[in-house]
Structures are given as structure tokens and as C-alpha cells.
């Protein structure tokens, strides 16, 4: 390959052909352009005229130059120029090549670039006939040397893992190294790691090591927290690299459940800072719908953080049986609940029925005995849909008859009358303490302080179901907390009061933890291992290394303590975990994670991933030459004056391709939208709905053509050629009138098309539905066409209908008519019903009816067939027989004229009612 600067040529001797260009110049310049033959009647006036100079037009110099350039481009293109031709890698021997990849989440951002580089290296190795093996440190498997081509085929299968190569995995990798000496290429993710040194040592012992490291910026998004009424977001980067703004996107679901971008904010890095912070103030409802935060345009699991319950502040409605007595706050049934929940939940208060539409997560009823039947029904409905009803006992509940004889639907258990008191001034026994929570209970693992005592409680009736409903009990085995599942929700009853009257439980920290476990309140901060002792969490969604969320299909559950403390790996993937009603996110980046750049000894060469691509240029040059030649054709045509004809011809062909529909008159096709609009709006245009049945569409087209011609001859309405419209694609607003023949097997329009139709009807359009069957069927659902009509028209916004009354404006908009026959002469034609208060005024010929055009006219008289004419105005279909038939056709045309007049002039003729009054007034 011969090199000229950064451009090399595969066959340089071909460039000698450039010497021939000057000769070509002389030849081309001598040839004049060919004459053009042109029809011109005025030629007789030209006879005998001579042009002033006898020299014909020479080819102009710029056209010649263009041709020369084209030829030169072809010659150079064929010589095979290559930009930045690949040079052989220096120092590459024939030793086998081991490709080591970190393959962590931090590599994912520049993974594509890494794979392209690797591809190039493998291609080179294939040419050099070197064996290659790959080793990914996050998924260490024994490396085996193979032919480079074999490895190259599998490069696309290499994907990074959403965790980092820790010491254990590096240890495994060391054992997986192949035998013998080899050269090593290490694709590093750029993060410092203790295990790197040992790995590097082991590799250097076997041969030279080269490190590839991407200089692309690496961002890590720390878990979002909630503080000061806003979501706090912080991001860090690997190296300070000047002032930089990154966008943080909060992705979630819109109220309809579709993925949507809910909010976004910008974090600004100072020039030499590696950390940037920001806050995102969002309404609680919006915050609860956020699925993930991510750095825009970053494809790494580190740039994604999943929010969990700590962001989701639950809405809790607090309702007490008795009003607060002023000044007695500590006795208020809600005082301790308010204090326990306020930091982590949004509290609502108000009347029960006012609260329910807000759909709170939890409703707390503190010592509320009875609720009205309406409230009970609404509450049950809400619980069925996932609400949680939390009840506390108290004097009122103990004294009431609620859930005595049979279980109240809003109580988890039946209660015995009166409750019991122990250890009080007037009772025997010691105050009771709590028994340890058993492992079925959601409270399992919580430590019970010694000083929590219970002095009074309501007692549950022993029932067969009682044992399964108790989730906390006293040392004597009496239930303290019971729970019943109801639909998707649950009802929980604390058998003590929510204040400190009956027990010291509300005073203790256990109370808050119990509420947390019940998911009444959300966790204020990331829980530590001790908090999660004894819980098992199932993965709900897991992150891949690129930051994509996948469904955790059959991954095993994870112990609570491991979830927060263990390192990420194949057994503990980053993602969203769920236990009971709580969810916890394990993100790639924790609160303490810091990004430190990897440092390599000086002896190790570190290369960036960028390299100038080897670019063959001949394709571009040949394409350029082609373009020049096309330009030459156009220029040559323009010079000889033929361009116009060619352009018109080409335009006609193009237009025919674009507009000419394959099946007769289709209103609109891709690219012809403007033509369609201008065509339909230049003149009044009647339209029919395309049914898909070829014959019916043709008759509808011919019918409207006949009607248009009739209108043209008889009235001042001069319609253009009728068009068929496709309800799905075409704009309807251009047409005053739609004829819709009903066939049993036409497709039902899509919801979008119906929306368009309703819009059309509301804006004053009219649809004439024609079931075309009144010769055999009466109007109604009996015939297939009638049934189809009902199905088609059901989603339409159609007012009440009635058969055309004798004084309807349709009977006199142009012709005076009493019948509306088409091919058949049934009287069943329906229009919008008159308003119920329309009355005939004495002395007026007709009632003062609707002010609008009737949006639909429905009948079955097959009008299109009666109107249908061919281009010469000859009727296509017979109507009746003999003169009577022709008379019927004439009346059908008159009906059409009246209909179009009605559409275009509205109730103008109806207003004639007022003419006597107007004249009377004018006379005075």
C-alpha cells in the first residue's frame, strides 16, 4: 500500500489515467449539444428567419469542469484510497493473546467502544494467526486459547455484569489463567481495586501487559434520599474534568400506568469537584410513582438508582372516635400515632367519606366502634383494592356490640364483651408483657423491650381462625395484634389503645418499628442489618450492567441482613426487593461508595480506546462522481431547453405514483396529504366512506358523482370530483357530507377514528348511513346490515333520532319533497329528533325545529345506486321500471340535492317561518 500522508492507495498506478483528462477536455468541448424537436404551430412565422451568428452553442466551461471532476473522482475512487490505513501493531509477536476484561458495571458505559476495539484486535490477531482467549473478571471461567475467528464470533455474547470483580472472584480468575506464556490486553473499567495488584502481578509473570482504559466520563448516582421536603440527589464522577452539567431523569409511570418521564433536574459539577448535589421537590403522589433515577444518556448500572419505600411516603388518614379535648393532648387517642408517623408519612385528616376518594394507603381508626353502613361499604371497597385499615381498641370499642355475635367485616376477630384489665389499681395480677414474635409474624426479629406492659385489652373470642390471625400476643397467649386479609388489603387490630392509657406500647420504640413492619410508616433511612434480622426478601426487578430493569424471574430470595451488607454478585443482584408489603432497593452505588481512579505502574502502557478508523474512501468518491454525473444530466437538459419537458414528465410520473391510488379513488396516500387537503378544499367535495368492498365503493363513488353532476347542473353548488375516505388515515374536516354504505363485513373503525368521527359530527358534519336493504328488511336490528349499523354507530355521538317528520327542513331545502326514495322507496328514514318542546304555532306552516344540521341521516334506500352514473351521465343501475322508475330516480336525485343543501345551508329554509313576522315588522 502506497501512503500519501494519511491516505493510502491500493492501486496507485491507476492514478496515471488522470493524465488523459486534458485530452478529454478538448474532445468534449468540440461537440455541440443535440437539437431538440419541438411542436410549434407558429412555425410558419419563423420560416426564413436566420440566427445572427452561425456558431452553435459550445458546451459551457463549467459543465465541462463538472464532467472532468466526475471522471477524476472515478479514477481516484477506483485507485482504492484509504484514510488512516491500519499499520501493523508494533511488537506483536506470535505469542497467544489473553484478553482480560473487568466486565463490571463501570465498563458498561463504554462497552460498545471496547467491543469495537476488541473486534479490531481480534481481526488483526486472526491475520497474524494468533490464538486468543478471553477472561472476564466478574464471571471468571477457565480461559482457553482458540482461533481468533472463533473468539470474534462470540464477542457479541460478552456482556458486563452489574457488579465488580472483588477479591474472591479475582482469586477464581487467577486459577482460571491458561497455561504457558502469553501477551495480555486488559480492558479496565478505570476504577481502583485492591485485587488489581495481585492480578497484574500474575499476568506480568506470563508476558507483557497492555491496558486499555476508556477516557469517557464515568458517573455514579448515589441513592436518592428524602430530606427537607425534597428528594436529595447526588452524583459523583471518576475524575474532575472541568465544569459539567448532567441531567438526572426521574422515570416512572403516569397515572394511566404508562412509562413516562416524571421529572428531571440538572446537577452541575464544579471544575475540580467529583461530586455534585441537587434536590428535586415533587408532590408526594408524583414521588410515589418514580421507578428510577438515571443520568441522562448514560448506559451503566452505576448511573441508575432505584428508589424504595424510603422515598415513598405513605398517606395515612387518622380518625379518632372522640374529638380532641383541648389541652389534653397526651390523652388524645391520636397523639402518639401522630408523633410516630409524622416524620415518615403524610397525614390526612377529615371525614371518612371525604378521605376515601384520596385513596390513602392506610386509614387508622383509633377507638372508633361503629361506622355507618355507607362508610362501611366504601371502606370495604377500598380495602378490597389494597387499602390497609388499622384499628385501635379503646373504651368505646370495648363497650360497643361491634363484632360480638358474629365477626364484623371491618374487624379481624370477634371480641368478647368488656375486655379485661390486669395489674391495675382495681384488679388482680401483674401487668402483662409481650411474648416473643413467632417466625410467621411480620414482626419477627424485633427486639422486645422489657418495659412494655399491657394493663388492659379487648379480648378475642376463640374461633377456629383466631390462631392464624394473631401476629403478636402477650406472654399469657392472649392476642395483642390480630390481622385479617381482605381482598388485596388487610385489617389490623391493636387490642390496646393508641395512647398510653391501656399499655406502654405507644411509648416505646417498638411501636414505631411495628408500624414500620406493617408498612404503615415508611423507613426513615436505609435500615441496617440488625433491623432486617430474620426477614427474607424476594427480588422483584433486577438491574443489568447497562442500567436496564429486568424482571427477576426465578432468582432466589435473599436474607435481610445479607441484602444490606453483602457485596453484589450473581447471588445478590442490584435491584428492587420485596418482603411483605415493604420494598427495599439495593443499588450498585451505595451511600458510601466513592469512585477512585485506578493507578497503574509506569511500566504498563495504558491506551485509550479511540483510534482513527481505517476508512476506505473509494465509495465516497464514486458516489460523488455519480452525483456529479446526475447533475451533469440535469445541466445538459437545462442547457438544451429540454429540462422542462423532462421535469414535467418526471413530476407527472412521480405524482401518478404518489397520488394515483391502486384501487380507484382513494382519498389520501403517504406524501399526498397536502394534495389531498388542497384537492378536497378547493371545491365542495362529497365523500364516501371506503368499506373495503370494491363494488360498493365503486357504486358509492359513482353515486356521488351522479349527485355532484346533478348539483352542478341544477344548483349553485358546484362540487368537485367525489372522493372515498379512509376513516383511519384521512382528515374528515374537509368534507361537509359523508356517505357511509353499511356492509356486514366492513372493519369497525379504531377508537382514534371514532374520536375523529365524533369531532366531525360535533363540528357540523353529516353522515348518511345507508344499509341498502330496505327492499328486504325493515329498519332495525333484524338484518345483518342493520346489526352492523348498530355496531358501527354505537360509539358515535348521535342524538336521539326519529323518522323524518312531515315538516322537517329536509322536505323543503331545495325541492318540496315528501318521500326520500333511493333505489328502494322505503319511508324509514331517520334524522335527529325534534326538541320535545317544539310546537306548531298557530298560523305557521311548520314547527320551529332544531337549530343545527342533523348529524346523521339513517335509511336503507340504497341512494348511491339510484344516483350512480358513469362519466357520461348514464345511470348505472336500474330503478323501478319504466317511467315510474325514472320518476323515482328523479326524486332520489332531488332528495340528494335537498340533503346537500341542508348540509350547506343548515336550517335556512326553516327560518322562512319567520318571514311573515319579519315583513310585518319591516312594514311598520
Amino acid at each position: 500500500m502506497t501512503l500519501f500522508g494519511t491516505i493510502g492507495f491500493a492501486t496507485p498506478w491507476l492514478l496515471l489515467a488522470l493524465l488523459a483528462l486534458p485530452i478529454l477536455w478538448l474532445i468534449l468541448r468540440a461537440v455541440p449539444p443535440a437539437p431538440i424537436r419541438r411542436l410549434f404551430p407558429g412555425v410558419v412565422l419563423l420560416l426564413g428567419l436566420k440566427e445572427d451568428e452561425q456558431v452553435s452553442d459550445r458546451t459551457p466551461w463549467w459543465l465541462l469542469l463538472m464532467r472532468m471532476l466526475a471522471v477524476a473522482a472515478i479514477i481516484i475512487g477506483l485507485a482504492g484510497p484509504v484514510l488512516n490505513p491500519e499499520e501493523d501493531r508494533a511488537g506483536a509477536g506470535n505469542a497467544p493473546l489473553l484478553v482480560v476484561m473487568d466486565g463490571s458495571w463501570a465498563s458498561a458505559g463504554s462497552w460498545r467502544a471496547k467491543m469495537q476495539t476488541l473486534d479490531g484486535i481480534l481481526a488483526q490477531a486472526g491475520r497474524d494467526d494468533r490464538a486468543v482467549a478471553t477472561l472476564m473478571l466478574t464471571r471468571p471461567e477457565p480461559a482457553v486459547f482458540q482461533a481468533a475467528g472463533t473468539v470474534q464470533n462470540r464477542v457479541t455474547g460478552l456482556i458486563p455484569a452489574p457488579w465488580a470483580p472483588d477479591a474472591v472472584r479475582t482469586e477464581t480468575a487467577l486459577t482460571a489463567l491458561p497455561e504457558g506464556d502469553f501477551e495480555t490486553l486488559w480492558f479496565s473499567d478505570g476504577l481502583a481495586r485492591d485485587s488489581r495488584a495481585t492480578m497484574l502481578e500474575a499476568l506480568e509473570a506470563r508476558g507483557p501487559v497492555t491496558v486499555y482504559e476508556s477516557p469517557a466520563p464515568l458517573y455514579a448516582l448515589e441513592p436518592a434520599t428524602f430530606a427537607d421536603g425534597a428528594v436529595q440527589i447526588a452524583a459523583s464522577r471518576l475524575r474532575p474534568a472541568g465544569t459539567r452539567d448532567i441531567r438526572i431523569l426521574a422515570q416512572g409511570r403516569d397515572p394511566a400506568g404508562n412509562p413516562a418521564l416524571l421529572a428531571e433536574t440538572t446537577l452541575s459539577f464544579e471544575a475540580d469537584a467529583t461530586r455534585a448535589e441537587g434536590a428535586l421537590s415533587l408532590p408526594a403522589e408524583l414521588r410515589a410513582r418514580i421507578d428510577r433515577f438515571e443520568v441522562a444518556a448514560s448506559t451503566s448500572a452505576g448511573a441508575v438508582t432505584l428508589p424504595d419505600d424510603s422515598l415513598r411516603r405513605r398517606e395515612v388518614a387518622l380518625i379518632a372516635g372522640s374529638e380532641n379535648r383541648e389541652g389534653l393532648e397526651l390523652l388524645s387517642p391520636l397523639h402518639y400515632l401522630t408523633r410516630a408517623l409524622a416524620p415518615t408519612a403524610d397525614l390526612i385528616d377529615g371525614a371518612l367519606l371525604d378521605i376515601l376518594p384520596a385513596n390513602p394507603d392506610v386509614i387508622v381508626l383509633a377507638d372508633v366502634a361503629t361506622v355507618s353502613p355507607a362508610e362501611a361499604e366504601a371502606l370495604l371497597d377500598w380495602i378490597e383494592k389494597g387499602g390497609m385499615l388499622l384499628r385501635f381498641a379503646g373504651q368505646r370499642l370495648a363497650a360497643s356490640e361491634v363484632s360480638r355475635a358474629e365477626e364484623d367485616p371491618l374487624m379481624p376477630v370477634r371480641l368478647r364483651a368488656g375486655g379485661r384489665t390486669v395489674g391495675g389499681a382495681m384488679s388482680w395480677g401483674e401487668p402483662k408483657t409481650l411474648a416473643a414474635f413467632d417466625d410467621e409474624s411480620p414482626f419477627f426479629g424485633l427486639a422486645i423491650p422489657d418495659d412494655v406492659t399491657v394493663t388492659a385489652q379487648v379480648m378475642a373470642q376463640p374461633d377456629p381462625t383466631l390462631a392464624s390471625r394473631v401476629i403478636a400476643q402477650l406472654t399469657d397467649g392472649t392476642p395483642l395484634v390480630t390481622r385479617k386479609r381482605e381482598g388485596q388489603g388487610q385489617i389490623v387490630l391493636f387490642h390496646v389503645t393508641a395512647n398510653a392509657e391501656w399499655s406502654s406500647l405507644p411509648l416505646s420504640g417498638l411501636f414505631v418499628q411495628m408500624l414500620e413492619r406493617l408498612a404503615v410508616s415508611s423507613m426513615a433511612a436505609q435500615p441496617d442489618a440488625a433491623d432486617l434480622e430474620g426477614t427474607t426478601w424476594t427480588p422483584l426487578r433486577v438491574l443489568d450492567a447497562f442500567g436496564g430493569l429486568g424482571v427477576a424471574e426465578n432468582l432466589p430470595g435473599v436474607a435481610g441482613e445479607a441484602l444490606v451488607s453483602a457485596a453484589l454478585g450473581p447471588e445478590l443482584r442490584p435491584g428492587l426487593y420485596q418482603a411483605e408489603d415493604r420494598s427495599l432497593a439495593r443499588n450498585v452505588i451505595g451511600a458510601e461508595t466513592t469512585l477512585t481512579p485506578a493507578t497503574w505502574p509506569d511500566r504498563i502502557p495504558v491506551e485509550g480506546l479511540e483510534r482513527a478508523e481505517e476508512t476506505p474512501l473509494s465509495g465516497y468518491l464514486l458516489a460523488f462522481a455519480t452525483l456529479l454525473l446526475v447533475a451533469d444530466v440535469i445541466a445538459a437538459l437545462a442547457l438544451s431547453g429540454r429540462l422542462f419537458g423532462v421535469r414535467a414528465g418526471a413530476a407527472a410520473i412521480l405524482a401518478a405514483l404518489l397520488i394515483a391510488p391502486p384501487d380507484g379513488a382513494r382519498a389520501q396516500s403517504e406524501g399526498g396529504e397536502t394534495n389531498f387537503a388542497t384537492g378536497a378544499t378547493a371545491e365542495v367535495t362529497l365523500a364516501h366512506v371506503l368499506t373495503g368492498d370494491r363494488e360498493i365503493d365503486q357504486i358509492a363513488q359513482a353515486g356521488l358523482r351522479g349527485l355532484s353532476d346533478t348539483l352542478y347542473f341544477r344548483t349553485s353548488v358546484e362540487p368537485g370530483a367525489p372522493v372515498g375516505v379512509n376513516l383511519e388515515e384521512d382528515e374528515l374536516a374537509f368534507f361537509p357530507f359523508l356517505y357511509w354504505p353499511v356492509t356486514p363485513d366492513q372493519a369497525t373503525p379504531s377508537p382514534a377514528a371514532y374520536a375523529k368521527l365524533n369531532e366531525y359530527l360535533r363540528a357540523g358534519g353529516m353522515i348518511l348511513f345507508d344499509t341498502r336493504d330496505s327492499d328486504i328488511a325493515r329498519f332495525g336490528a333484524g338484518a345483518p346490515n342493520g346489526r352492523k349499523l348498530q355496531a358501527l354507530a354505537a360509539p358515535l355521538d348521535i342524538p336521539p333520532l326519529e323518522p323524518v317528520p312531515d315538516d322537517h327542513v329536509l322536505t323543503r331545502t331545495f325541492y318540496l319533497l315528501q318521500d326520500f326514495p333511493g333505489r328502494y322507496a322505503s319511508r324509514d328514514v331517520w334524522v335527529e329528533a325534534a326538541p320535545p318542546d317544539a310546537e306548531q304555532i298557530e298560523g305557521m306552516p311548520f314547527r320551529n325545529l332544531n337549530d343545527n344540521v342533523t348529524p346523521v341521516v339513517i335509511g336503507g334506500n340504497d341512494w348511491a345506486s339510484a344516483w350512480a352514473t358513469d362519466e357520461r351521465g348514464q345511470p348505472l343501475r336500474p330503478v323501478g321500471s319504466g317511467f315510474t322508475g325514472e320518476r323515482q330516480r328523479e326524486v332520489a336525485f332531488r332528495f340528494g340535492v335537498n340533503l346537500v343543501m341542508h348540509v350547506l345551508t343548515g336550517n335556512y329554509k326553516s327560518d322562512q317561518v319567520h318571514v311573515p313576522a319579519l315583513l310585518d315588522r319591516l312594514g311598520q
Partner: protein
Amino acid sequence: MTPELALQARARAEEEAGRLPALLARAEQLAGTVLLGEHGRRRAGLGDDFWQYRPMMPGDTYRAIDWRRSGRGDAQFVRDREWQIAQSVMLWVDRAASMRFASTPDLPEKADRARLLGLAVAILLNRGGERVGLTGFDLPPRRGNAQIMRLAQAFADADTADYAAPEARGMIPHSRAVFISDFLGDFDAVSAALTKAADRGVRGVLVQVLDPSEETFPFRGRTIFESVGRQVAHETLKANDLRARYLERLAARKDELTAIARATGWLYTCHHTSEPAQSALLWLWRALDGSHG
């Protein structure tokens, strides 16, 4: 006639017949725009419509007295009727090949425009009660809708000659005539026809129908110009060089037409196919109506 030939003839006939209703309809439509407002002869004479009452004068018969009007006063009145007399109007529409030319597909052919104008004016005249016919002996002036059909049929026949000379035979003395053509052919024939017409006391109208490209000559480069019938050709190396001199000749031709029209008492107008037919029809109608005197 062999079956194939018969079939071909039939197909061509159908095709031609198919054009008729469209042409008729367009002509009717065009005529409908001019119809109202120009009725009658505006003078007393023989006819059906009331014109005026005038005092009885010597020479009037008693039968002419309108007794109802006279009964209201002492004088006798005669009821005059509006003069209605049918004129004969002879049409000549150029059907030669040179008329079958349109410079762009958007424009109608000159022949098409000429036919349309001819037929529309025929319809108008027919409605006004005049007799319409063709010059020559094929179609003498008659009244009625059937005559319109016959005219439309006659217009549909095409002539194969490149340029046609006006047909001036068979003209009824003191009738009116309308000649519609591009008048690009032999000028002597036009002059002879008009002189002959003037000899017979026939006055009329010349309508020159031209394509816009014939007015502007928008051609460049090496070109061979051919007539539509391909009988005349002219080659040039630089079409744009000829433009000025072509336009001069065209203007000279128009001047000649104007001059001969003035000399013989005819009226002349030039109409371009790019303009609406209605303006030409309006001019034509006024020209004819005015010439009724």
C-alpha cells in the same frame, strides 16, 4: 370494411361521442353565466312581449287599439309589442391541426377552447331566438336544441390539414358571422374570405385563439420547430435569437387582422388559452349583440 376496421371506427366514434356531452355541458355552463340581462331588440315591432302603449296615430287600425287602456281615459292607445326577429349567425371554427396544440398539459388545446367558445355562443344565440349554423353548405342556420347537437357533432370532426382557410361560401346575405381560429395560416385566404363576406353585407367577429407560448416564444438552444401536422419544419441553432423577430411578425399578423377587420366592418379580438373562456365569451356576446344595432 373488415371487422377490425369496423371495430376501430366504432371505438373512435364512441370516444368522440363521449366527448360531446362534456363539451355541451361545459358550453351550457359557460353560456349560463352570460344569459340574463340582454334580451330582446329594444324597439317596437312584431313579437309577443309587451313593449309600450302609445297614442293612436293615423294609420293604425281599430283592431290595434287596446281598449282596456283606452277605456281609462279619453285618448285611444295602441299596445306596441317588442320587435322580435331572428337573425342568422354563421360560425366557422378552425379544425385544422395547428389548433390541436397546447404548450403545457395544464392548458387546454386551442381547438378545445375554440370549440367551447363556438358552442357556447351558439347556445346563447339559440336561447336568444337566433338561428345558428356553419358557414359552407353542411349545416345551414336553424333554431332549436337539435341544431346545437349537430353543431357539437360538426365541431368534433378534426381536419388533417396543417392550417385551414376560413370557409366563406354559403353565407346568407346580411347575416352575422363568427370566425374562430389562430389565423396563423395563409393570410390571403383570410383576407379573401372577409372581403367576400363584406361583399354580401355580412358582418361579424374574428376571434384569434393563441397559446401563451405562441405569444412569448420561450425557447432556447438548438431546436427544430415543426408544425402539428409535421408538414412544415424550421431548424435553428439559437432559438432565443429568433425571439424578437418572431414577435415582430406575430404583431404584424395581428395588425393585418385588425386592419382587414376594420376595413370590412368586422370586429377582432385575440384570446389566449391561459385566460378564462368566460371573458372571451362575454366579449363575443357583446360584440354580436351590439352589431344587431
